[in-house]
């Protein structure tokens, strides 16, 4: 052992400034270099994140060759080019991670202006209406399908470029959910949104009771409640919610809904559809006579007012004119004497000895103390079953007796 390792033995025995053997020096250097390397690596790792904040955040400075996003540049451009960024950042789409590219195309990861907005990378600039509708439908497929079956899309297809696209109603960059008071389709703003193109309808609607209810508590009907929002169809189309065959059901969606339009709250009667269905108009309509009056023919379509309003088409003073629209007769005021939406339940049968406190409509039923609207139906309800049962019994028993007597004769 000793003879084989003379150096090691000599080291142990020697002490002080004696020269270190070469092999050992090499090992020290390697260890020191390794330590320094590790230290440097740690220093680099520690220092790197410290360097990043030193760059100003969102700096718009466009540098050729450095990847960026649309808003990095656009936010600092003149207002017509920067406003879309601010609008978009406030929209529901921004919150849902929709990006500029989803509508405008292009490539925000490109390292040059030319590439980022190159048609080769799908950049289309401002999409035309048809393209825009298709793009919105990629996510909003149900609404898109409704829109495609509607009159606005049809008009676009026929070349009417002023027909409404998605953006015309919902806004362009700052699209907000319906509940947001700044949304273009919020109940308080929807009429003016539609009124941009349909000013006549908006003006008429503005005088009606529905708009007053919207202003009171947002619960009145707005455009889309009757016309639907996406699959809007002209009233001539039998699939339209305002087609003569469907209009009564459309109005009844609210007007028969006792829970939401209850008499105790609005004073609105919820039996208007049933009472209409008892009328001759409704019966004729059922058999395909489309000339007859439905709700809007008497109550107006946009300027719907309560009957007590002197300007209402169904105010008693105006009924002769309203009925005369179809019946082409100069009606006297007698046409207003009676209840158009009449039903037996409206008659109590109470004996009245005077006309105090009666409306002209009620008064017209007045014949002595008897309310004919109550007593005449009651008369038939008693007459028909009682007489017919008696007759049936007489006929059956008569046959029984005849057979019995024949037997007895034999």
């Amino acid at each position, binding site marked *: 052992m000793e003879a084989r390792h003379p150096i090691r033995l000599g080291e142990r025995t020697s002490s002080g400034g004696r020269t270190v053997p070469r092999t050992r020096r090499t090992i020290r250097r390697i260890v020191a270099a390794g330590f320094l390397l590790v230290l440097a690596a740690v220093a680099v790792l520690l220092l790197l994140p410290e360097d990043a904040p030193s760059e100003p955040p969102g700096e718009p400075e466009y540098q050729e060759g450095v990847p960026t996003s649309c808003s990095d540049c656009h936010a600092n451009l003149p207002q017509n080019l920067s406003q879309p960024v601010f609008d978009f950042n406030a929209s529901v789409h921004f919150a849902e991670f929709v990006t500029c590219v989803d509508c405008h195309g292009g490539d925000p990861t490109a390292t040059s202006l030319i590439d980022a907005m190159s048609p080769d990378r799908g950049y289309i600039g401002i999409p035309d209406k048809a393209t825009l509708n298709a793009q919105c439908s990629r996510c909003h497929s149900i609404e898109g399908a409704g829109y495609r079956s509607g009159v606005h899309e049809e008009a676009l297809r026929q070349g009417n470029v002023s027909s409404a696209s998605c953006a015309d109603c919902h806004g362009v960059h700052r699209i907000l959910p319906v509940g947001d008071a700044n949304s273009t389709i919020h109940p308080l703003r929807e009429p003016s949104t539609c009124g941009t193109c349909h000013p006549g309808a908006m003006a008429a609607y503005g005088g009606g009771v529905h708009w007053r209810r919207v202003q009171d508590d947002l619960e009145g009907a707005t455009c889309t409640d009757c016309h639907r929002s996406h699959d809007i169809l002209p009233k001539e189309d039998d699939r339209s919610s305002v087609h003569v065959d469907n209009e009564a059901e459309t109005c009844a969606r609210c007007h028969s809904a006792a829970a939401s339009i209850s008499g105790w709250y609005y004073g609105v009667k919820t039996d208007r559809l049933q009472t209409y269905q008892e009328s001759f108009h409704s019966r004729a309509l059922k058999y395909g006579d489309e000339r007859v009056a439905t709700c809007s023919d008497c109550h107006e379509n946009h300027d719907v007012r309560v009957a007590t309003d002197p300007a209402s088409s169904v105010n008693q003073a105006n009924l002769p004119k309203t009925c005369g629209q179809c019946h082409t007769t100069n009606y006297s005021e007698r046409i207003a004497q*009676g209840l158009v939406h009449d039903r037996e339940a409206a008659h109590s049968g109470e004996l009245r000895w005077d006309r105090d406190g009666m409306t002209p409509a009620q008064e*017209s039923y007045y014949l002595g103390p008897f309310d004919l609207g109550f007593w005449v139906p009651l008369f038939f309800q008693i007459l028909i079953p009682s007489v017919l049962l008696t007759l049936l019994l007489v006929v*059956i028993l008569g046959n029984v007796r005849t057979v019995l*007597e024949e037997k007895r004769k034999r």
Partner: protein
Amino acid sequence: MTEGKAEAQGEVQRFTLHQRIQHVLLFIPFFLLVITGFPLKFPNEWWSQPLVNLVGGWEMRGLIHRASGIFIVGLGIYHGLWYVVVERNPKKIVPRRQDVRDFVQHLKWLVGRAEKPRYGRYSWVEKFEYWGAGIGMVIMGTSGLVMMFPDWAFNTFPLATYQVLWIVHSNWALFDTLVILIWHMGNVHFTVKNFPMDRSWIDGKISLKKLREEHPLEYEETTKKESEADASN
């Protein structure tokens, strides 16, 4: 029972050709009025639309109904005038006190408490139907004629009048139709003796056997006249 006499053979004329034609001219428009009127009263039944289609659509339904109505009112007026002016013998069909007694006795007979009443030419059963049709014509004719001219009616009466007339017209229609179904069918068609029908509405004849059973007083009158005629010969 009282079957002393030999079984009567042969037939006698009960209805004249004139009466039989009136009967046909009455029930054809009546039937048309029913099938064109019921779809309007009951618009939501499974048979409503098929019935309207059957008569040629909505417009045709109204036309047929009005034409039949006018015709039947005209027939009623004609019949009344004929009976009073030409026939001059309305007594047989006018209700008498005897008819009330017959009616009560008939009810007793039904429960086995009396003999069957002995009826003359027209029993209370027939008078009830005849005068029911007459009253029906007045009620339906008046209300129908007013409703046929709504614009005139709206300007002449309050709207409520029109609505009450509709209730009267449509309810009486239902009543009339069911009375015919039960009473007329039950008395002349679906009886154990007449089924499927009494031929007298076609040829006007009634057998002496049936005349004796159903109208014994008239039978006796007829045979008495005949025997008197025989005796005088």
